[in-house]
């Protein structure tokens, strides 16, 4: 008797995969406008499973630890006390705030009354409404076939929020989405989705803030889809400060029409394992994306940033600057890809990834890629892994500054290069405080004497 070769169906599911399948069996695809969407998401996830090392996109990031865990869907969790919430909040940020606990919107902590043409709707409500823009956009930008975790998110799509900005509108205040990962007893998987519809000539400042408290063992699997109409400008912040025990996986997927501009700030400070896939399609001429990224990796943490920019149309531009400081037993992975498609002429695509490797047990794997199928292009990329500049260090020492302080000063300065590109002062200050917090001897480096006096 011969044994049939193992197929996908017969493959043994990991505890995590089994728990997702159980949740799916329990919930099904629902009966709102997103039924097909969920079914497609689950089918795609079922086909791929959790990515394993053989996939090029996951070469340096193993999900074994995640796969071993069983996750249950988010249930009700007691809302944090106002002072605890305030402790996690971004100090000095004057914005509209929506709070999510383990993916679920908590209306009583949220301020959903958008002004100036800003519409904020719980995603489940939007998906239930026939003909809603959310149904058009959700699943149309984040590809379930190439991103298994986005597929998983889509299988359970419902949590999260739809944000619509009317044509020409420019809300005066930033919108702050606060995603709290809190202990719910056993590990919880949250699959929030943010769907942004920025109409032509509109402007939006959006902060996605992933944070939490305690020894959580949760999985946050967040997907954001942004559609920018012609001339729309979105300044997007993604601040990830989850406790160093959780898993954080995210996708940020943008589609930019003519002359639209997306500025993304991707700031990683937390989670045991963090992986973010940024995918931006510059679909029409004049579209532009700026990608700033900063990661501080210490302890035994692992941070993986994958970015991909598709220049689908002529006269599109991308500019990427990612920097990381990797210490202790931390591991940082960067993969940045710019693809210039056939006939997309007059392109500029620039990319820089620099890493400071500070410890003997730390590791950096970086892979900046260019795939170019047009000729009238100006593309460049650079990647470095190394230490502090010896000449700069000597210069500081020769001025009497101690080696320890000098090192911290230079490390701070290295990270500060990304921080100074953050226009929103409250976020920038928080980032600088974060960097300085990791560098005890670097206090006040970023600030002028005048500020201090």
């Amino acid at each position, binding site marked *: 008797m011969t044994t049939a070769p193992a197929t996908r169906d017969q493959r043994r599911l990991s505890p995590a995969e089994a728990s997702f399948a159980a949740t799916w069996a329990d919930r099904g695809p629902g009966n709102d406008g997103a039924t097909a969407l969920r079914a497609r998401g689950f089918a795609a996830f079922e086909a791929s499973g959790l990515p394993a090392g053989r996939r090029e996109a996951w070469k340096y990031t193993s999900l074994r630890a995640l796969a071993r865990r069983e996750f249950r869907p988010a249930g009700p969790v007691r809302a944090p006390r106002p002072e605890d919430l305030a402790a996690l909040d971004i100090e000095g940020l004057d914005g509209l705030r929506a709070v999510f606990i383990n993916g679920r919107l908590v209306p009583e902590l949220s301020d959903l009354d958008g002004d100036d043409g800003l519409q904020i709707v719980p995603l489940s409500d939007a998906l239930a409404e026939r003909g809603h823009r959310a149904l058009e956009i959700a699943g149309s930008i984040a590809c379930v076939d190439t991103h298994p975790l986005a597929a998983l998110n889509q299988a359970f799509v419902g949590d999260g929020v739809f944000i619509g900005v009317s044509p020409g509108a420019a809300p005066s205040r930033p919108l702050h989405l606060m995603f709290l990962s809190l202990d719910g007893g056993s590990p919880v998987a949250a699959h929030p989705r943010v769907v942004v519809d920025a109409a032509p000539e509109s402007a939006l400042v959006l902060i996605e803030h992933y944070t939490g408290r305690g020894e959580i063992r949760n999985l946050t699997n967040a997907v954001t889809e942004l559609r920018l109409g012609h001339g729309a400008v979105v300044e997007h912040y993604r601040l990830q400060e989850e406790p160093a025990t959780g898993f954080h996986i995210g996708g940020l997927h943008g589609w930019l029409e003519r002359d639209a501009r997306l500025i993304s700030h991707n700031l990683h400070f937390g989670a045991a394992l963090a992986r973010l896939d940024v995918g931006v399609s510059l679909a029409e001429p004049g579209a532009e994306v700026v990608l700033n990224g900063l990661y501080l990796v210490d302890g035994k943490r692992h941070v993986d940033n994958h970015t991909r920019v598709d220049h689908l149309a002529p006269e599109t531009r991308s500019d990427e600057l990612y920097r990381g400081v990797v210490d202790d037993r931390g591991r940082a992975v960067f993969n940045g890809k710019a693809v210039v498609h056939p006939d997309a002429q007059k392109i500029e695509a620039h990319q820089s990834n620099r890493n400071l490797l500070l410890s003997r047990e730390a590791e950096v794997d970086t892979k900046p890629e260019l795939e170019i199928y047009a000729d009238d292009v100006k593309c460049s990329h650079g990647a470095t892994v190394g230490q502090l500049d010896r000449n700069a260090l000597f210069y500081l020492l*020769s*001025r009497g500054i101690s080696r320890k302080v000098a090192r911290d000063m230079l490390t*701070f300065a290295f990270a500060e290069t990304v921080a100074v590109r953050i226009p929103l002062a409250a976020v920038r200050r928080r980032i600088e405080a974060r960097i300085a917090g990791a560098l005890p001897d670097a206090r006040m480096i970023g600030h002028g004497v005048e500020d201090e006096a």
Partner: protein
Amino acid sequence: MLKVTNLHARVDDKAILTGLDLEIGAGEVHAIMGPNGSGKSTLANVLAGRDGYEVTEGTVEYDGQDLLALAPEERARRGVFLAFQYPVEIPGVNNAYLLKAALNAIRAHRGEPELDAFEFLALVKERMELMHMDESFLNRGVNEGFSGGEKKRNEILQMAILEPRLAVLDETDSGLDIDALKVVAAGVNSLRDPERAIVMVTHYQRLLDYIEPDYVHVLSGGRIVKTGDRTLALELEDRGYDWLREAASV
């Protein structure tokens, strides 16, 4: 104050200094001249303690102490200052912070209290006027985007604020136009002091028109081959270095 005896030093396994002797007393201004590759900058870097400059023989005594045994920052705190030939750009570290951190480290070493922000600012502003520098530079990155002249002025400003006992100016005149040279020279002259020694390392005697040295040394082949006064520099201007090199090789 400084006594260099039979100093031999290598860079990348290449012997650069080959038995250099030099003695400098407080209040004196010395010029060290020499052709390219004679070891001038090596001497400056060895005194400041730069990595990669390996002393293979000889001693350097500074205020009765073995200077070579000290880390670069300890030398700086004891009053050794190097004005760099190529000041390093350090984006992200602002000038004011560098100055304040350096000054307070040195003051702490001397047992003086830290300056508070107001005192510090007052001091810096006063010294900046001396160097004709705009205040906006304080909040810029160290030397970031500075012109050649600005960098050199910034070096002298640091010297004016840190008030070293022994200042080594490495090719401070190179890359300066005549106006910038005058400003830099005026800054240096204002820092002449009976307690302070200044060593100028230079290829051309032009700088010496503005900062008059007490002694002029000629460095060639890694050693001081001739010492004289101001007139030696003028002679070099006329005759070049070759006659000395020939003399030295005999």
